[in-house]
């Protein structure tokens, strides 16, 4: 059993993001990159399967942002192989391009499962997992929160979330692409001493890939959320404010 995990770099919102002078792109000098949160969950889910079923976990990242550190951290957590895909891109490309890049790298590599976070904060053109599955001609399940391997039957049982608190258990024929919503447990911690040791001794493989042509995505305007108008500020003692809130809720028929 071989599992590929796609680890995407996204802007770190803690550090803040600025729009550049064109008004159509993020100012690259304002950004620091980190691993997309749900890709971290995808890696955790793969590592859990490795522990349960001796799966082999391989992690792929495009050479952008802090990808090298992300890959070292994946090795430190227990990944078997990490690969940096080099396509000459300085910042993360759109998802169609990313999906095509990963498809060219993964084609013919005999992975039974390909995991990616179901979404990332910089998704502008759909979800990476779905696009990749399309290019590879594989089944795709998104919003997955649990994965079990069904013996040697070439199948996986996955739990997928639906709106309204519902979930379904699905049987998926392998190979398949899964968009992970949450791993079965929070992503594990890597002690810094181990990370630093892996940075000295671990191996990040490099693999060149030519930038594919994908449907162009043209951004007309990129802007920060605009402040809404018409908010009512309540003031007074906590009791008075509570009474006002109760009145407003009752006026709007939101109280039973």
């Amino acid at each position, binding site marked *: 059993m071989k599992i590929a995990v796609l680890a995407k770099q996204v802007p*770190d919102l*803690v*550090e*803040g993001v600025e729009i550049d002078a064109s008004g159509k792109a993020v100012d690259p000098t304002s950004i620091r990159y*980190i691993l997309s949160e749900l890709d971290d969950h995808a890696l955790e889910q793969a590592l859990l399967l490795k522990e349960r079923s001796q799966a082999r976990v391989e992690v792929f990242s495009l050479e952008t942002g802090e990808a090298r550190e992300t890959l070292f951290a994946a090795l430190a*957590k*227990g990944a078997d192989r990490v690969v940096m895909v080099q396509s000459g891109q300085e910042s993360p490309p759109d998802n169609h391009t990313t999906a095509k890049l990963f498809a060219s790298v993964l084609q013919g590599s005999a992975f039974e499962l390909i995991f990616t976070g179901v979404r990332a904060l910089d998704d502008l053109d759909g979800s990476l997992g779905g696009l990749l599955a399309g290019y590879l001609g594989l089944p795709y399940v998104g919003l997955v929160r649990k994965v079990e391997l069904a013996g040697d039957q070439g199948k996986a049982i996955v739990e997928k979330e639906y709106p309204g608190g519902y979930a379904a258990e699905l049987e998926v024929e392998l190979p398949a692409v899964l968009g992970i919503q949450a791993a079965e*447990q*929070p992503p*594990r*911690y890597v*002690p*810094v*001493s*181990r*990370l*630093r040791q892996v940075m000295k001794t671990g191996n990040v493989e490099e693999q060149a890939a030519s930038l594919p042509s994908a449907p162009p995505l043209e951004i007309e305007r990129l802007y920060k959320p605009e402040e809404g108008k018409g908010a009512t500020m309540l003031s007074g003692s906590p009791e008075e404010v509570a009474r006002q809130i109760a009145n407003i809720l009752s006026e709007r028929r939101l109280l039973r």
Partner: protein
Amino acid sequence: MGTMRPQITPEKTDPVFPEIAQIPELFRTCIQCGVCSGSCPMGEVMDFTPRKAAKMIADGRAEEVVSSNTPWLCVACHTCQVRCPSQLLIPDGLFPALRSAVMAEGKPMEQDLQKALQNTYLYGNPMGQSPRKRAEWTKTAGVPVPIISQIKRPVDVLWIVECYPSFEPRNQEISRKLARILNALGVDFAILGHEERCIGDCEWLAGERGLYEMLIERNIEILSKYRFKEIIVTDPHAYRTLLNAYPILGGAYKVKHFAPFLAERLGQLKPLFKKKLNATVTYHDSCCLGRKTGHYDEPRTLLQAIPGVKLAEMIQSRESSLCCGGGATTIYLDRFIQERAKDRLADRRVQQAVATKAEVLAVACPYEPSRFEDAVKVTGNEEKLVVRDIIELLAESMGLE
């Protein structure tokens, strides 16, 4: 009155980090007297008390201890360590070794703690704030708070503000008041601003040696860029690390916590007191300023100098002071501890303060305003007790609010 200093030397708090395999050797002189277990404020809820844990590890039963609740219940108050007749490193050696073993095994950690460590790695502060915003609090200080990289000249005093006083709203207010006091005293000071990162203390106690060393290496590099005569810190945890661990790793500075620094300037401070406070105040010796570094008198000297302040002592004070229950990253383990202990140390401590009939619980550690204010509410003592940093009481009397 002479200060009774616990026998803490740099050697004793050497950042050696005994991995669990070294514990039997390190604890060879343990006489199994049990003073540690009897002194431990969390001992009664630990699966294995420190005495028992040390013996079990020596007997090859480390795994049992690592998977028990023991590793995460030490609050690093250091009562055991200063009382230990064999002077063994209990919170500084045994517990970090246990915690690093938990981490090394990849066992799931409490999420609040994991987040705090990850944030410290990424941003240099446990709350996950942008380092660029470290000096935001100064904007409303009302006095200049220069950033050393911007003024481009040596200063007398480099003030290391630390994480809680830089980012937590309750503590930011205290930082602004200290800035005003320093300004009123005419101290030539500056801060590191966006270059400041966590000084390191709880990372070591949490068993995260790599993160601890990374922070110290980086901070020494930053500090080497600037010229200053001495460092003052707002946080006693940072104080003890700068005092004991930095010199061993190549960063020897003259360093003071703000309370001793201000107590030295009492002659200058006294004429600046304008308002009589008319309050009975009880002072909480924080573990790092008290037991770990022996500064029992200076905070009291400052409080007694404030016109109208009457000092009352709690049943556990000075060397036997009761910890607020937030040390060694247990500040991120409140839920874990609450599920196991019948009460919180902060609640117990606030009840001791109320028993003195004091109206004010004075503190000098940035963990404490929020911990004790919460405990005052939880124990239903809002009418009886307020929590004030010594800085706030000084500023109030000096009319610097």
